C-alpha cells in the first residue's frame, strides 16, 4: 500500500544544506503496522511528514496505492490526507473552539465519511462518553490524546500516521492510551506508521525500523 523509494530530503541552514533523510526505502502493506524509531533529530518526523504529504521530498518517490505523492497538486495532497489518512500528533492538535464530540467527528465529516455508529463505538472504546460536551482546554493530556486518536480513526482511514502519540503523557497514561490505540487500529484494519523513541512501544507493532542520521539501519 505504501512504498518509499530512494527518498532524500535536505533542509537549508546557515551552515549549508543539512541532510535529514538519505536514500530511504520502505514498504508498508495494507493492515500492517510499523514503528519508526530513532534518536531526536534522526529524521523520523520528517519522514512521517513526507508520507503525510505535508512536505515534499527533494528526490525519491512515495507511492500510496496507485498515487505518487510528489506529483499531486496542493489540493490533491489535501484530498489524499482527508480521504486516506488519520493523523495523531504528539501535541494532540485538537481544535480548541470545538467540543469533544465535534472534534471527534471533524475529519470524518469533512471527508464525507461520518458514521454515527462507528462514532459511538469509538466514544465507548475511548471512554469519552462523559466528556463529549467539554472543550479541549477542559481535558487532561491523556483525555486529549484519546480524542485525537478518535478523530484520526473516525473516518476509517487506510493509513494512520502517529508522531510519538504518547510523548506528552506520563508512562501509565501513555500505556493506557497506546493499548486503546492499537486495539482500535486492529478493529479498523488500517495500516499504522508510528514514530516513537520507545523500544517498549515499538515492540507492540509488527515491524520496527531504526533511523540513524537520516538512514535506515
Amino acid at each position: 500500500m505504501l512504498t518509499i523509494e530512494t527518498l532524500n530530503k535536505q533542509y537549508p541552514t546557515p551552515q549549508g544544506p543539512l541532510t535529514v533523510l538519505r536514500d530511504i526505502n520502505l514498504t508498508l502493506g495494507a493492515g500492517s503496522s510499523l514503528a519508526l524509531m530513532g534518536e531526536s533529530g534522526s529524521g523520523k518526523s520528517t519522514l512521517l511528514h513526507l508520507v503525510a504529504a505535508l512536505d515534499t521530498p527533494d528526490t525519491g518517490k512515495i507511492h500510496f496505492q496507485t498515487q505518487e505523492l510528489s506529483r499531486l497538486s496542493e489540493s490533491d495532497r489535501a484530498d489524499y490526507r482527508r480521504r486516506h489518512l488519520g493523523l495523531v500528533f504528539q501535541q494532540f492538535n485538537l481544535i480548541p473552539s470545538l467540543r469533544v464530540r465535534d472534534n471527534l467527528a471533524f475529519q470524518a465529516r469533512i471527508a464525507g465519511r461520518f458514521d454515527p455508529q462507528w462514532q459511538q463505538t469509538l466514544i465507548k472504546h475511548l471512554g469519552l462518553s462523559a466528556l463529549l460536551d467539554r472543550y479541549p482546554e477542559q481535558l487532561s493530556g491523556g483525555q486529549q490524546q484519546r480524542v485525537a486518536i478518535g478523530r484520526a480513526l473516525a473516518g476509517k482511514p487506510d493509513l494512520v500516521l502517529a508522531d510519538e502519540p504518547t510523548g506528552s503523557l506520563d508512562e501509565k497514561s501513555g500505556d493506557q492510551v497506546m493499548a486503546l490505540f492499537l486495539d482500535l487500529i486492529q478493529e479498523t484494519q488500517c495500516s499504522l506508521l508510528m514514530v516513537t523513541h520507545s523500544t517498549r512501544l515499538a515492540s507492540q507493532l509488527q515491524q520496527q525500523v531504526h533511523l540513524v542520521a537520516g538512514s535506515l539501519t
Partner: protein
Amino acid sequence: MNHSAISRARQRLNLLRWLLQTLSSHWLRHPVQLATLFTGLMLATALWSGIQALNTQARSSYDRAATLFGSDATERLISTQGQTFPQQLYIELRRGGFRVSPLLEGRIRVMQQNLQLIGIDPVTLPGDTRIASVSSGQGSLNQFLTPPGQTYIAPETLQELGLAAGDQPLVAAHHLPPLTERAGLPPGLLVVDIGVAQTLLGQPDLLSALLIPELSDDERERLTQYIKHSTKEELRVASSDEEADLARLTDSFHLNLTALGLLAFVVGLFIVHAAMGIAFEQRRSLFRTLCACGVSRGVLILGLLLELLLLVLLAGAAGMIGGYLIAAWLLPDVAASLRGLYGASIAGQLQLSLWWWLSGLGICLLGALIASAQGLLQSYRLPLLSIAQPDAWLQRQQSLHRKQGVIALLLLLAALIAWQSQAGLIAGFIMLAGLMLCITLLLPVLLGALLQLAERRSRSAFMFWFWADTRQQLSGLSLALMALLLALSANIGVGTMVEGFRQTFTGWIDQRLASEVYLRAENETQALAMVEWLEQRPEVEAALPGWSTEIQLQGWPVQLQGYRDHATYRDNWPLLQRSDDAWTQLAQGSSAMISEQLARRLSLSLGDEVRLPGIQGDLPLRLVAIYPDYGNPKGQIILNLSLLKAHWPEAQRGSFGIRLDPQAAPQLISDLQASFNLNASQVMDQASLKSWSTAIFERTFTATSAMNGLTLGVAGIALFSSLISLASSRLPQLAPVWALGITRRQLALVELLKTLLLAGLTALIAIPLGLLLAWCLVSVINVQAFGWRLPLHLFPLQWLQLFLMAIITALLASIWPVMKLARTSPATLLRVFADER
C-alpha cells in the same frame, strides 16, 4: 453534469460547510473579539456612509436646482437696468417670433421659513427643462393654470414646513394656491403660475428673466439684433449658472467632510485590522490542524473569505443603519452651514438611494479585505510544519515594523512631492494623509526605541522586566495606539484650526462691521424713501450705501461691491496688504481692492491690473489692496460706487450701514421698523449682526467637531478591544512573574500603568503631529479649499485637555481587562505551566 462531477461538487460543499462551522466556532468561543471586529466594521461603515449620505443629499439638491431650467446652463434674458423688467418686453419678443418663456423669481416667508418663489408660464416653457416635466404630465396643467391654481413644492419641503398637500398658507395677505407635491423639485422652492407670483411678490406686470430655448446661430443673431434695436438694450443674454457655481463652490466643503469621514473610516479599520490580526494569530495552529486533516489552503482561504463576507453583511448592514442615524443627526447642522455659507437649500429629510446602500456595503467589504489582507496572505503562506513559538508574534511584529518604516518613508516622500506640486486641494490632502500616516506608522518604532532606552537605563530587576514586558506588549497594542494617535492628532489639528479661525474671525468681524445699524430695503423705491427718511434724522452721522452686482472672471463668480468714500472704511476695514493711500486711490476711481481668496484663485497680487467686463467693455483697474473676506465662498472686488453704477447699471442696492451714536441705535431701529414695517432681518444693530454671523460660523464646525469626537471614541474602542483581546494571550508572560511572588493585584496595577504609559507617550507624540496637521490645514488645505490663510495660534490648554482625555480613554479601556486579570484564578495561571509540558 455527470455523476462523479455532482458527487465531487457535493463533497466540496460538505467540506466548506464543516470548515465554516469550525471557523465560526472560534468566534463563539471569543465573543468579545467578535464584538470588537463587528464594532470596528460597523463604526467604520457608519462614519463613512454617514458622511456620504450628507454629501449625496446635498449634491442631489444642487443637481435638482442646477437642472431646474435645463440639463445644462440654459440661457436667459435679464434686465440690464435692475432686477426686473416690464412684462411688455416679453410680449414684444413673442410677437417678434421668439419662443421665450417668462419667469419671475423672489423670496417669500412661509411658516417662518424663507423660501424661493418662482412664477412660470408652463405653456411656453422649453420642453427639455426639469420644471417643464414637473409641471406637465399627470393632466395637471389645467389645475395649475385655473383658479385657485397650484403651488408646486418638493415633498421634503412640505414636510419641513409642517404642512399637508392642499394647504394654502397665508403669504403677505394672500393665500398661496393649494400646495401640491412634486418630487423632482429642489428643496426650499415654490413654483406657481407667473400671475400668482406677481401678486405674491408685489411686482405686477414685472418679470425677472425670459428663458431662451436652444438657438441656432441664425436665431441667436436675430435675437441679438432684436434686443439691440427693439428693446433698446434693456435686456441682455446671461447664462443661468448660479446653481452650477454652487456645486463648484461647495466642493471644498464636501471634500473636507469626506476627508473627515475617511479619517474616521481609517481609524475604524485599525480596529478591524487589530481584531483580525489577533484572530488570525490565535487560529494559526487551527489552520495547521485543518490542513493536516485535509483542508487545502485554497479551500481554507475560501472559507475565511466567506466568513469575512458574512461579517461584512451583518456589520455593514448595522453600519449603514448607524450611518443613516449619524447623517440624520448631522444633517440640520450641515444644511444650516451650507445655507449660511453658500445660500444652498438642502432637503431636510434624508433620501437615500439603493446605490448608497450598495456602495456602503461595498466600502465595508473593501475595508474588511484591506484590514484582513495581511492575515489572509499569512494564512495562505502558512508553513504547515512550523512549530508555534510563543514569541513568533513579536518577531513578526518586529519584521512588520521594519516594513512599516519603509512604507512611512515612502509616504513622507509622497507628502513632500504633493507639497512641492501645489496641485490643488487633492494634493493638499495627499500631503496631509502622507504625513499623518507616515508618523502613525513610525509610532511603534518610536515607542519601541523609547522603551528600549528606558530598559537599558533601568537598575532594578523589576524595572528591567517592566520595560521589557511593556515593549513586548507594544506589539499587540501598536495598532490601537496608532488609531489613538490619529484621532488625537486630528483633534489637536482641527481644534487648533477651528479655535484659530474663531479668534481671527471674531477680530475680523469686529473691524468689518463698524456701522452701528444695518438696514436693508425691499426694493429701490423703499430704499430711496429710507435715504430721505434718514436725512431727516439729526442723530444719523452717515448712511453708507453698498451696491453690488455679480460678474464672471476666468469662470469664477465674482461679487463687485461699490462703496462711497468714507472714514468708516478707512478707519476700520481690515486689509492684509495695501499700497499707500489705497482708499484715496479707490475713491479716485482708477483702482480696486480684491478679496484674498479671489486674488489667490486668479493669481493676482498688489499692483496688478484686473480687467472687469462691464457694459462699456473691459474696465481696467489697478489693485491697491487685498483684504480678508472669511466665510464668503465667492470672490469679491471693491470699487468706487459711482464707477460701479456707471459700468454695471444692473447693480443692486444692498444694505445700508448707518453711523450714529451707539446709544441712539435702539430708538432709530424702533422708528425704522414702525415707519417702514420692517421685520427683524431687515434692520439689525451691530451686536445682533455679529452674533448672527458668529452663529453661522459656529454651526459650520458642528459637523467637524462631531466627527472629531466620534473618531476619538472609535480610537478608545480600538484600545479597549486590543486590551481585551490581549488579556488572555498575556497570561504566559505574566504567570511566571506571578509565580515569582508578584500578586495578581500588583500585576493588574502594573498592567494598568503600562497601558497609561503607552497612551500618555502616544498623546505626547500626538501634540507635535497635531500641530503639523494644523499647519497643513491652515497653510495648505484652507488656502486651497477656501482661498484664505489664517495665522496659526497655539492653544496649550487644549493640548493638556486632550492629553488628559487620552489618559482617561486608556483608563476606561483598561478597567475591565485589568479587573479580569486581577480576578484570574490561580488555576488559570497554573495552566500556563501545565500547557508548557
